[in-house]
Protein backbone atom coordinates (compact mmCIF):
# COMPACT_ATOMS: atom_id res chain seq x y z
CA UNK A 1 0.00 0.00 0.00
CA UNK A 2 1.75 3.11 -1.27
CA UNK A 3 -0.94 5.67 -0.49
CA UNK A 4 -0.62 7.21 2.97
CA UNK A 5 -3.63 9.53 2.68
CA UNK A 6 -6.53 9.05 0.31
CA UNK A 7 -9.77 10.95 0.15
CA UNK A 8 -12.74 10.07 -1.99
CA UNK A 9 -15.35 12.70 -2.86
CA UNK A 10 -14.69 14.48 0.42
CA UNK A 11 -16.94 17.47 1.11
CA UNK A 12 -17.46 19.92 3.95
CA UNK A 13 -20.42 22.22 4.23
CA UNK A 14 -21.15 24.92 6.79
CA UNK A 15 -24.84 25.74 6.61
CA UNK A 16 -25.26 26.87 3.00
CA UNK A 17 -21.58 27.31 2.20
CA UNK A 18 -19.52 24.48 0.71
CA UNK A 19 -15.93 24.84 1.91
CA UNK A 20 -14.62 21.61 0.38
CA UNK A 21 -16.21 20.47 -2.87
CA UNK A 22 -16.01 16.77 -3.78
CA UNK A 23 -12.30 16.27 -3.33
CA UNK A 24 -10.22 13.29 -4.38
CA UNK A 25 -6.70 13.41 -3.08
CA UNK A 26 -3.92 10.93 -2.63
CA UNK A 27 -0.57 11.29 -0.87
CA UNK A 28 1.97 8.65 -1.72
CA UNK A 29 4.72 7.31 0.50
CA UNK A 30 7.90 9.39 0.41
CA UNK A 31 6.36 12.52 -1.08
CA UNK A 32 6.72 16.05 0.22
CA UNK A 33 3.47 17.49 -1.00
CA UNK A 34 2.79 21.22 -0.80
CA UNK A 35 -0.83 22.26 -0.55
CA UNK A 36 -1.06 25.77 -1.94
CA UNK A 37 -4.01 28.13 -1.85
CA UNK A 38 -5.10 31.57 -0.80
CA UNK A 39 -6.70 32.28 2.60
CA UNK A 40 -10.11 30.64 2.71
CA UNK A 41 -9.27 28.20 -0.08
CA UNK A 42 -10.03 25.27 2.21
CA UNK A 43 -6.51 24.15 3.18
CA UNK A 44 -6.95 24.31 6.95
CA UNK A 45 -10.43 22.77 6.75
CA UNK A 46 -8.97 19.89 4.72
CA UNK A 47 -6.21 19.41 7.31
CA UNK A 48 -8.73 19.55 10.16
CA UNK A 49 -10.85 16.89 8.50
CA UNK A 50 -7.80 14.67 8.05
CA UNK A 51 -6.87 15.22 11.71
CA UNK A 52 -10.41 14.34 12.82
CA UNK A 53 -11.02 17.76 14.34
CA UNK A 54 -13.88 18.32 11.93
CA UNK A 55 -16.29 15.81 10.48
CA UNK A 56 -16.66 15.70 6.71
CA UNK A 57 -20.16 16.31 5.34
CA UNK A 58 -19.69 13.38 2.97
CA UNK A 59 -16.97 11.28 1.40
CA UNK A 60 -14.38 8.90 2.74
CA UNK A 61 -10.88 9.17 4.16
CA UNK A 62 -8.31 6.40 4.20
CA UNK A 63 -5.10 6.66 6.19
CA UNK A 64 -2.54 3.93 5.51
CA UNK A 65 -5.34 2.11 3.74
CA UNK A 66 -7.55 2.09 6.83
CA UNK A 67 -10.93 3.74 7.09
CA UNK A 68 -13.88 3.86 9.50
CA UNK A 69 -13.03 2.99 13.09
CA UNK A 70 -9.62 1.60 12.12
CA UNK A 71 -8.56 5.12 11.17
CA UNK A 72 -7.95 5.97 14.83
CA UNK A 73 -5.21 3.35 15.01
CA UNK A 74 -3.75 4.51 11.69
CA UNK A 75 -3.57 8.08 13.01
CA UNK A 76 -1.00 6.96 15.57
CA UNK A 77 1.45 6.65 12.69
CA UNK A 78 0.80 10.27 11.76
CA UNK A 79 1.44 13.65 13.34
CA UNK A 80 -0.58 16.77 12.72
CA UNK A 81 0.18 20.40 13.35
CA UNK A 82 -2.87 22.34 12.25
CA UNK A 83 -2.80 26.11 12.72
CA UNK A 84 -1.18 27.13 16.02
CA UNK A 85 0.16 24.34 18.22
CA UNK A 86 -1.76 23.94 21.49
CA UNK A 87 0.08 23.48 24.78
CA UNK A 88 -0.50 24.23 28.45
CA UNK A 89 0.70 27.82 28.94
CA UNK A 90 1.80 27.24 32.55
CA UNK A 91 3.84 24.12 31.70
CA UNK A 92 7.45 24.05 30.55
CA UNK A 93 8.43 22.37 27.28
CA UNK A 94 9.40 19.20 29.16
CA UNK A 95 6.15 19.11 31.17
CA UNK A 96 4.11 19.63 28.01
CA UNK A 97 5.95 16.87 26.18
CA UNK A 98 5.70 14.62 29.24
CA UNK A 99 1.90 15.06 29.19
CA UNK A 100 1.79 13.97 25.53
CA UNK A 101 4.39 11.22 26.07
CA UNK A 102 2.12 9.65 28.71
CA UNK A 103 -0.94 10.16 26.50
CA UNK A 104 0.70 8.51 23.50
CA UNK A 105 2.12 5.63 25.50
CA UNK A 106 5.74 6.38 24.60
CA UNK A 107 7.88 4.46 27.05
CA UNK A 108 11.24 6.05 26.34
CA UNK A 109 11.53 9.33 28.28
CA UNK A 110 14.73 10.20 26.42
CA UNK A 111 12.70 10.76 23.27
CA UNK A 112 11.42 14.08 24.72
CA UNK A 113 14.94 15.42 25.06
CA UNK A 114 15.88 14.10 21.62
CA UNK A 115 13.05 15.98 19.90
CA UNK A 116 13.81 19.16 21.87
CA UNK A 117 17.41 18.86 20.66
CA UNK A 118 16.25 18.32 17.06
CA UNK A 119 14.14 21.49 17.02
CA UNK A 120 16.72 23.56 18.89
CA UNK A 121 14.85 23.98 22.16
CA UNK A 122 17.16 21.92 24.34
CA UNK A 123 18.31 25.03 26.21
CA UNK A 124 14.81 26.45 26.61
CA UNK A 125 13.17 23.39 28.11
CA UNK A 126 12.59 24.98 31.53
CA UNK A 127 10.89 28.10 30.20
CA UNK A 128 7.10 28.19 30.45
CA UNK A 129 5.23 27.89 27.16
CA UNK A 130 3.55 31.22 27.89
CA UNK A 131 6.94 32.92 27.78
CA UNK A 132 7.88 31.37 24.44
CA UNK A 133 8.13 33.48 21.28
CA UNK A 134 5.96 32.57 18.30
CA UNK A 135 8.90 30.82 16.65
CA UNK A 136 9.65 28.79 19.77
CA UNK A 137 5.99 27.74 19.99
CA UNK A 138 6.15 26.53 16.40
CA UNK A 139 9.34 24.59 17.14
CA UNK A 140 7.71 22.94 20.13
CA UNK A 141 4.77 22.05 17.88
CA UNK A 142 7.17 20.33 15.50
CA UNK A 143 8.88 18.62 18.45
CA UNK A 144 5.49 17.23 19.49
CA UNK A 145 4.92 15.97 15.95
CA UNK A 146 8.22 14.10 16.07
CA UNK A 147 7.66 12.72 19.58
CA UNK A 148 5.86 9.59 18.47
CA UNK A 149 8.27 8.96 15.53
CA UNK A 150 5.51 9.19 12.89
CA UNK A 151 5.57 7.91 9.32
CA UNK A 152 3.71 10.95 8.01
CA UNK A 153 3.66 14.60 8.98
CA UNK A 154 0.78 16.92 8.17
CA UNK A 155 1.90 20.49 8.79
CA UNK A 156 -0.24 23.57 8.37
CA UNK A 157 1.92 26.71 8.28
CA UNK A 158 4.81 25.19 10.29
CA UNK A 159 7.21 28.04 9.55
CA UNK A 160 4.78 30.75 10.58
CA UNK A 161 6.55 33.15 12.93
CA UNK A 162 10.02 31.73 12.41
CA UNK A 163 12.98 33.93 11.54
CA UNK A 164 15.06 33.35 8.41
CA UNK A 165 17.47 31.08 10.24
CA UNK A 166 14.61 29.14 11.79
CA UNK A 167 12.89 28.71 8.43
CA UNK A 168 16.11 27.35 6.94
CA UNK A 169 16.61 24.95 9.86
CA UNK A 170 13.06 23.61 9.61
CA UNK A 171 13.45 23.18 5.85
CA UNK A 172 16.66 21.20 6.38
CA UNK A 173 15.01 19.17 9.14
CA UNK A 174 11.97 18.29 7.04
CA UNK A 175 14.15 17.36 4.08
CA UNK A 176 16.33 15.20 6.34
CA UNK A 177 13.29 13.49 7.86
CA UNK A 178 11.98 12.79 4.39
CA UNK A 179 15.24 11.54 2.92
CA UNK A 180 16.75 9.69 5.86
CA UNK A 181 13.69 8.52 7.76
CA UNK A 182 11.35 8.18 4.75
CA UNK A 183 8.75 10.36 6.45
CA UNK A 184 6.02 11.47 4.08
CA UNK A 185 5.07 15.13 4.44
CA UNK A 186 1.96 17.12 3.56
CA UNK A 187 2.65 20.81 4.13
CA UNK A 188 1.03 24.17 3.57
CA UNK A 189 2.58 27.60 3.85
CA UNK A 190 2.07 31.10 2.57
CA UNK A 191 5.80 31.35 1.96
CA UNK A 192 5.80 29.79 -1.50
CA UNK A 193 9.52 30.22 -2.02
CA UNK A 194 10.06 27.82 0.89
CA UNK A 195 7.67 25.28 -0.53
CA UNK A 196 9.45 25.65 -3.85
CA UNK A 197 12.71 24.70 -2.16
CA UNK A 198 11.21 21.77 -0.27
CA UNK A 199 8.32 20.06 -2.01
CA UNK A 200 8.39 17.30 -4.60
CA UNK A 201 4.75 17.74 -5.50
CA UNK A 202 2.48 20.77 -5.68
CA UNK A 203 -1.28 20.73 -5.22
CA UNK A 204 -3.15 23.98 -5.82
CA UNK A 205 -6.50 24.44 -4.13
CA UNK A 206 -9.03 27.17 -4.78
CA UNK A 207 -12.51 27.48 -3.28
CA UNK A 208 -12.33 23.91 -2.02
CA UNK A 209 -11.36 22.45 -5.39
CA UNK A 210 -7.98 21.12 -6.50
CA UNK A 211 -7.23 23.22 -9.56
CA UNK A 212 -3.82 21.74 -10.34
CA UNK A 213 -1.74 18.83 -9.08
CA UNK A 214 1.74 18.37 -10.49
CA UNK A 215 5.16 17.01 -9.72
CA UNK A 216 8.22 19.22 -9.44
CA UNK A 217 9.34 18.15 -12.93
CA UNK A 218 5.98 18.96 -14.44
CA UNK A 219 5.85 22.29 -12.63
CA UNK A 220 9.24 23.23 -14.03
CA UNK A 221 8.04 22.26 -17.48
CA UNK A 222 4.79 24.15 -17.08
CA UNK A 223 6.46 27.22 -15.60
CA UNK A 224 6.78 28.48 -19.12
CA UNK A 225 9.62 30.75 -20.01
CA UNK A 226 8.84 34.16 -21.40
CA UNK A 227 10.81 36.89 -23.12
CA UNK A 228 10.95 40.28 -21.43
CA UNK A 229 11.74 43.23 -23.70
CA UNK A 230 12.29 46.92 -22.99
CA UNK A 231 12.26 48.93 -26.20
CA UNK A 232 12.13 52.58 -27.28
CA UNK A 233 8.94 52.14 -29.36
CA UNK A 234 6.49 49.52 -28.20
CA UNK A 235 3.89 50.29 -30.90
CA UNK A 236 6.38 49.62 -33.68
CA UNK A 237 7.63 46.52 -31.90
CA UNK A 238 4.11 45.10 -31.69
CA UNK A 239 3.56 45.81 -35.36
CA UNK A 240 6.77 44.01 -36.32
CA UNK A 241 6.08 41.03 -34.11
CA UNK A 242 2.51 40.56 -35.37
CA UNK A 243 3.66 40.79 -38.96
CA UNK A 244 6.43 38.22 -38.45
CA UNK A 245 4.59 35.75 -36.21
CA UNK A 246 0.83 35.49 -36.71
CA UNK A 247 0.07 33.57 -33.51
CA UNK A 248 2.47 35.37 -31.20
CA UNK A 249 1.23 35.88 -27.62
CA UNK A 250 2.42 38.99 -25.87
CA UNK A 251 1.51 41.59 -23.31
CA UNK A 252 2.37 45.28 -23.51
CA UNK A 253 3.34 46.59 -20.10
CA UNK A 254 3.94 50.15 -18.92
CA UNK A 255 7.36 51.77 -19.47
CA UNK A 256 7.73 50.35 -23.01
CA UNK A 257 8.00 46.80 -21.69
CA UNK A 258 6.67 43.79 -23.57
CA UNK A 259 6.49 40.16 -22.50
CA UNK A 260 6.28 37.40 -25.11
CA UNK A 261 4.90 34.06 -23.94
CA UNK A 262 5.69 31.89 -26.98
CA UNK A 263 8.49 31.68 -29.54
CA UNK A 264 10.96 31.70 -26.63
CA UNK A 265 13.19 29.28 -28.53
CA UNK A 266 13.42 31.89 -31.33
CA UNK A 267 14.52 34.72 -29.06
CA UNK A 268 17.68 35.46 -31.10
CA UNK A 269 15.64 35.76 -34.25
CA UNK A 270 13.19 38.18 -32.55
CA UNK A 271 16.05 40.31 -31.29
CA UNK A 272 17.58 40.53 -34.77
CA UNK A 273 14.19 41.38 -36.32
CA UNK A 274 13.73 44.34 -33.99
CA UNK A 275 17.28 45.66 -34.31
CA UNK A 276 17.30 45.36 -38.12
CA UNK A 277 14.03 47.32 -38.27
CA UNK A 278 15.38 50.21 -36.22
CA UNK A 279 13.90 49.38 -32.81
CA UNK A 280 16.28 50.08 -29.98
CA UNK A 281 16.24 47.09 -27.63
CA UNK A 282 17.24 48.42 -24.21
CA UNK A 283 16.75 45.13 -22.37
CA UNK A 284 16.26 41.58 -23.58
CA UNK A 285 15.92 38.71 -21.11
CA UNK A 286 14.31 35.30 -20.76
CA UNK A 287 12.33 34.76 -17.58
CA UNK A 288 11.16 31.56 -15.91
CA UNK A 289 8.07 31.77 -13.70
CA UNK A 290 8.67 30.86 -10.08
CA UNK A 291 6.11 29.03 -7.94
CA UNK A 292 4.61 32.30 -6.76
CA UNK A 293 4.07 33.57 -10.28
CA UNK A 294 2.73 30.21 -11.39
CA UNK A 295 0.28 30.21 -8.47
CA UNK A 296 -0.86 33.77 -9.15
CA UNK A 297 -1.24 32.96 -12.85
CA UNK A 298 -3.34 29.94 -11.95
CA UNK A 299 -5.53 31.84 -9.52
CA UNK A 300 -6.07 34.77 -11.90
CA UNK A 301 -6.71 32.43 -14.81
CA UNK A 302 -9.28 30.60 -12.77
CA UNK A 303 -10.90 33.84 -11.63
CA UNK A 304 -11.49 34.84 -15.27
CA UNK A 305 -13.20 31.47 -15.80
Amino acid at each position, binding site marked *: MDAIIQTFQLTKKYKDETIIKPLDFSLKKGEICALIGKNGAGKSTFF*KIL*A*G*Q*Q*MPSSGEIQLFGKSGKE*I*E*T*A*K*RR*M*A*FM*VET*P*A*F*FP*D*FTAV*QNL*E*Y*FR*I*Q*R*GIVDKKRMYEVLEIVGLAHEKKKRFNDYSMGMKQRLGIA*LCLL*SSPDCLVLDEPINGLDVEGIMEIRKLLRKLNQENQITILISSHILTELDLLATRFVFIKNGVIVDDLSRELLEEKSRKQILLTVDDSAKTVQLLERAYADIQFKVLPNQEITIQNYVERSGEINRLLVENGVMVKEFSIKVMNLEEYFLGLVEEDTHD
Partner: protein
Amino acid sequence: MINYMKSEYYRLLRKKGLHLTGIICFLLIASAAGVLYFTAQSDPNFRYGTSTFFYSNVIASGLLIIIIGLLYNIALTGKDRYLIKQAISFGISRRIIFWSKLILTLSYFLFICIVGICLMILLGDNLLTHEHHAIRHFLMASVNMIPIVLSGFFLVHTLKMLKVGEIFIIIIVSIIFGFLGDLLHLLLRPFTALDELYKYAPDTMLNDNLMSFVNDTPELGFQYWIVGLVISGVSLLIGAKLFAKQNID
Protein backbone atom coordinates in the same frame (compact mmCIF):
# COMPACT_ATOMS: atom_id res chain seq x y z
CA MET B 1 -8.21 5.16 27.57
CA ILE B 2 -5.78 4.39 30.38
CA ASN B 3 -2.98 6.42 28.73
CA TYR B 4 -5.31 9.36 28.16
CA MET B 5 -6.51 9.23 31.76
CA LYS B 6 -2.93 9.02 33.02
CA SER B 7 -1.98 12.12 31.04
CA GLU B 8 -5.01 14.05 32.30
CA TYR B 9 -4.19 12.92 35.84
CA TYR B 10 -0.66 14.30 35.32
CA ARG B 11 -2.25 17.61 34.34
CA LEU B 12 -4.80 17.57 37.18
CA LEU B 13 -2.15 17.06 39.83
CA ARG B 14 -0.36 20.19 38.64
CA LYS B 15 -3.43 22.44 38.91
CA LYS B 16 -2.52 24.64 41.86
CA GLY B 17 -5.84 26.53 41.75
CA LEU B 18 -7.73 23.31 42.22
CA HIS B 19 -5.80 22.26 45.32
CA LEU B 20 -6.23 25.78 46.67
CA THR B 21 -10.03 25.54 46.18
CA GLY B 22 -10.07 22.37 48.29
CA ILE B 23 -7.99 23.99 51.02
CA ILE B 24 -10.27 27.07 51.02
CA CYS B 25 -13.36 24.83 51.34
CA PHE B 26 -11.82 22.99 54.30
CA LEU B 27 -10.81 26.28 55.91
CA LEU B 28 -14.35 27.62 55.53
CA ILE B 29 -15.75 24.47 57.16
CA ALA B 30 -13.27 24.80 60.03
CA SER B 31 -14.00 28.53 60.36
CA ALA B 32 -17.75 27.90 60.53
CA ALA B 33 -17.23 25.30 63.25
CA GLY B 34 -14.87 27.68 65.07
CA VAL B 35 -17.35 30.58 64.94
CA LEU B 36 -20.18 28.40 66.27
CA TYR B 37 -17.94 27.00 69.01
CA PHE B 38 -16.64 30.35 70.24
CA THR B 39 -20.05 32.04 70.03
CA ALA B 40 -21.62 29.20 72.03
CA GLN B 41 -18.81 29.51 74.59
CA SER B 42 -19.25 33.24 75.01
CA ASP B 43 -23.06 33.41 74.85
CA PRO B 44 -24.98 30.80 76.89
CA ASN B 45 -28.24 31.76 75.09
CA PHE B 46 -26.80 31.02 71.63
CA ARG B 47 -28.96 28.21 70.27
CA TYR B 48 -26.94 27.30 67.19
CA GLY B 49 -23.82 25.85 68.72
CA THR B 50 -25.06 22.36 67.91
CA SER B 51 -23.76 19.77 65.51
CA THR B 52 -27.19 19.52 63.84
CA PHE B 53 -27.15 23.19 62.95
CA PHE B 54 -23.56 22.88 61.75
CA TYR B 55 -24.43 19.93 59.49
CA SER B 56 -27.62 21.59 58.25
CA ASN B 57 -25.47 24.22 56.52
CA VAL B 58 -24.17 21.54 54.18
CA ILE B 59 -27.58 19.93 53.65
CA ALA B 60 -28.89 23.39 52.68
CA SER B 61 -26.05 24.06 50.23
CA GLY B 62 -26.88 21.66 47.38
CA LEU B 63 -26.71 24.36 44.72
CA LEU B 64 -23.50 25.81 46.14
CA ILE B 65 -21.86 22.37 46.13
CA ILE B 66 -22.83 21.91 42.48
CA ILE B 67 -21.25 25.30 41.65
CA ILE B 68 -18.08 24.24 43.51
CA GLY B 69 -18.26 21.07 41.39
CA LEU B 70 -18.16 23.32 38.34
CA LEU B 71 -14.79 24.65 39.52
CA TYR B 72 -13.45 21.09 39.69
CA ASN B 73 -14.87 20.20 36.30
CA ILE B 74 -13.39 23.32 34.71
CA ALA B 75 -9.94 22.08 35.73
CA LEU B 76 -9.94 19.76 32.71
CA THR B 77 -12.71 21.22 30.58
CA GLY B 78 -11.92 24.94 30.76
CA LYS B 79 -8.98 26.45 28.91
CA ASP B 80 -7.36 23.02 28.69
CA ARG B 81 -10.08 22.12 26.24
CA TYR B 82 -7.92 23.76 23.58
CA LEU B 83 -5.57 20.76 23.74
CA ILE B 84 -8.26 18.26 22.83
CA LYS B 85 -7.43 18.78 19.15
CA GLN B 86 -3.97 17.29 19.71
CA ALA B 87 -5.45 14.19 21.32
CA ILE B 88 -8.02 13.78 18.55
CA SER B 89 -5.43 14.13 15.81
CA PHE B 90 -3.51 11.32 17.52
CA GLY B 91 -6.52 9.05 17.17
CA ILE B 92 -7.95 9.30 20.67
CA SER B 93 -11.71 9.14 20.29
CA ARG B 94 -14.07 11.84 21.48
CA ARG B 95 -15.83 9.18 23.56
CA ILE B 96 -12.62 8.47 25.53
CA ILE B 97 -11.98 12.19 26.02
CA PHE B 98 -15.54 12.85 27.24
CA TRP B 99 -15.61 10.03 29.79
CA SER B 100 -11.99 10.33 30.95
CA LYS B 101 -12.36 13.98 31.83
CA LEU B 102 -15.60 13.19 33.65
CA ILE B 103 -14.17 10.28 35.64
CA LEU B 104 -11.09 12.22 36.74
CA THR B 105 -12.78 15.48 37.73
CA LEU B 106 -15.60 13.58 39.43
CA SER B 107 -13.12 11.44 41.38
CA TYR B 108 -11.27 14.50 42.62
CA PHE B 109 -14.55 16.27 43.47
CA LEU B 110 -15.84 13.22 45.36
CA PHE B 111 -12.54 12.95 47.21
CA ILE B 112 -12.87 16.57 48.36
CA CYS B 113 -16.53 15.95 49.35
CA ILE B 114 -15.64 12.88 51.39
CA VAL B 115 -12.77 14.66 53.15
CA GLY B 116 -15.12 17.62 53.75
CA ILE B 117 -17.79 15.36 55.29
CA CYS B 118 -15.22 13.65 57.50
CA LEU B 119 -13.86 17.01 58.60
CA MET B 120 -17.38 18.21 59.44
CA ILE B 121 -18.16 15.13 61.48
CA LEU B 122 -14.84 15.44 63.28
CA LEU B 123 -15.39 19.11 64.11
CA GLY B 124 -19.12 18.83 64.82
CA ASP B 125 -18.68 15.87 67.10
CA ASN B 126 -15.78 17.33 69.07
CA LEU B 127 -16.40 21.07 69.23
CA LEU B 128 -20.17 21.51 69.22
CA THR B 129 -22.98 20.28 71.43
CA HIS B 130 -23.39 16.65 70.61
CA GLU B 131 -26.92 15.60 69.73
CA HIS B 132 -28.24 12.09 69.64
CA HIS B 133 -28.39 10.63 66.10
CA ALA B 134 -26.93 13.86 64.61
CA ILE B 135 -24.20 12.02 62.67
CA ARG B 136 -26.55 9.29 61.49
CA HIS B 137 -29.11 11.85 60.34
CA PHE B 138 -26.40 13.91 58.66
CA LEU B 139 -25.15 10.87 56.75
CA MET B 140 -28.70 9.89 55.73
CA ALA B 141 -29.44 13.39 54.45
CA SER B 142 -26.08 13.42 52.66
CA VAL B 143 -26.86 10.12 50.95
CA ASN B 144 -30.15 11.63 49.73
CA MET B 145 -28.24 14.62 48.39
CA ILE B 146 -25.64 12.56 46.51
CA PRO B 147 -27.70 11.69 43.39
CA ILE B 148 -29.01 15.26 43.02
CA VAL B 149 -25.56 16.84 43.42
CA LEU B 150 -23.99 14.30 41.09
CA SER B 151 -26.66 14.94 38.46
CA GLY B 152 -25.71 18.63 38.70
CA PHE B 153 -22.06 17.71 38.21
CA PHE B 154 -22.91 15.60 35.15
CA LEU B 155 -25.01 18.40 33.69
CA VAL B 156 -22.15 20.84 34.23
CA HIS B 157 -19.71 18.43 32.52
CA THR B 158 -21.97 18.03 29.52
CA LEU B 159 -22.43 21.77 29.15
CA LYS B 160 -18.69 22.43 29.49
CA MET B 161 -17.82 19.79 26.89
CA LEU B 162 -20.33 21.38 24.56
CA LYS B 163 -18.52 24.72 24.91
CA VAL B 164 -21.25 26.48 26.94
CA GLY B 165 -19.86 29.48 28.86
CA GLU B 166 -19.44 29.35 32.64
CA ILE B 167 -21.89 32.19 33.36
CA PHE B 168 -24.54 30.52 31.27
CA ILE B 169 -23.89 27.20 33.06
CA ILE B 170 -24.33 28.88 36.45
CA ILE B 171 -27.64 30.36 35.26
CA ILE B 172 -28.89 26.96 33.97
CA VAL B 173 -27.80 25.14 37.13
CA SER B 174 -29.30 27.85 39.35
CA ILE B 175 -32.64 27.52 37.56
CA ILE B 176 -32.74 23.70 37.66
CA PHE B 177 -31.35 23.25 41.17
CA GLY B 178 -32.57 26.52 42.69
CA PHE B 179 -35.96 27.58 41.32
CA LEU B 180 -37.37 24.88 39.06
CA GLY B 181 -39.78 23.54 41.70
CA ASP B 182 -41.28 26.97 42.39
CA LEU B 183 -41.48 27.63 38.68
CA LEU B 184 -43.26 24.34 37.95
CA HIS B 185 -45.58 24.86 40.91
CA LEU B 186 -46.58 28.23 39.53
CA LEU B 187 -46.90 27.19 35.90
CA LEU B 188 -48.55 23.79 36.33
CA ARG B 189 -50.99 24.68 39.11
CA PRO B 190 -53.95 24.93 36.69
CA PHE B 191 -53.32 21.42 35.31
CA THR B 192 -54.52 18.83 37.80
CA ALA B 193 -52.58 15.99 36.15
CA LEU B 194 -49.30 17.86 36.44
CA ASP B 195 -49.69 20.00 39.55
CA GLU B 196 -47.72 17.51 41.68
CA LEU B 197 -44.74 17.46 39.31
CA TYR B 198 -42.94 20.26 41.15
CA LYS B 199 -42.38 17.84 44.08
CA TYR B 200 -39.87 15.99 41.90
CA ALA B 201 -37.91 19.07 40.89
CA PRO B 202 -34.32 18.90 42.27
CA ASP B 203 -34.66 22.08 44.34
CA THR B 204 -37.93 20.90 45.96
CA MET B 205 -36.31 17.59 46.83
CA LEU B 206 -33.24 19.29 48.30
CA ASN B 207 -35.55 21.49 50.40
CA ASP B 208 -37.59 18.49 51.56
CA ASN B 209 -34.38 16.73 52.52
CA LEU B 210 -33.27 19.77 54.53
CA MET B 211 -36.63 20.06 56.30
CA SER B 212 -36.59 16.38 57.24
CA PHE B 213 -33.07 16.80 58.59
CA VAL B 214 -33.81 19.86 60.74
CA ASN B 215 -37.00 18.19 61.99
CA ASP B 216 -34.97 15.14 63.00
CA THR B 217 -36.99 12.90 60.68
CA PRO B 218 -34.66 12.13 57.76
CA GLU B 219 -35.31 9.00 55.74
CA LEU B 220 -33.42 7.45 52.89
CA GLY B 221 -35.55 8.06 49.81
CA PHE B 222 -35.42 6.26 46.49
CA GLN B 223 -37.08 9.28 44.79
CA TYR B 224 -33.81 11.22 45.11
CA TRP B 225 -32.03 8.48 43.20
CA ILE B 226 -34.71 8.26 40.53
CA VAL B 227 -34.65 12.02 39.86
CA GLY B 228 -30.85 12.08 40.04
CA LEU B 229 -30.53 9.15 37.65
CA VAL B 230 -32.95 10.69 35.15
CA ILE B 231 -31.10 14.03 35.09
CA SER B 232 -27.71 12.29 34.99
CA GLY B 233 -28.71 9.84 32.27
CA VAL B 234 -30.28 12.47 30.04
CA SER B 235 -27.36 14.90 30.52
CA LEU B 236 -24.65 12.35 29.85
CA LEU B 237 -26.36 10.66 26.92
CA ILE B 238 -27.05 13.96 25.17
CA GLY B 239 -23.56 15.24 26.05
CA ALA B 240 -21.70 12.18 24.80
CA LYS B 241 -23.77 12.05 21.60
CA LEU B 242 -23.35 15.74 20.74
CA PHE B 243 -19.67 15.81 21.68
CA ALA B 244 -19.01 12.84 19.39
CA LYS B 245 -20.11 14.98 16.44
CA GLN B 246 -18.64 18.27 17.56
CA ASN B 247 -16.00 20.16 15.60
CA ILE B 248 -12.87 20.72 17.67
CA ASP B 249 -10.94 23.87 16.82
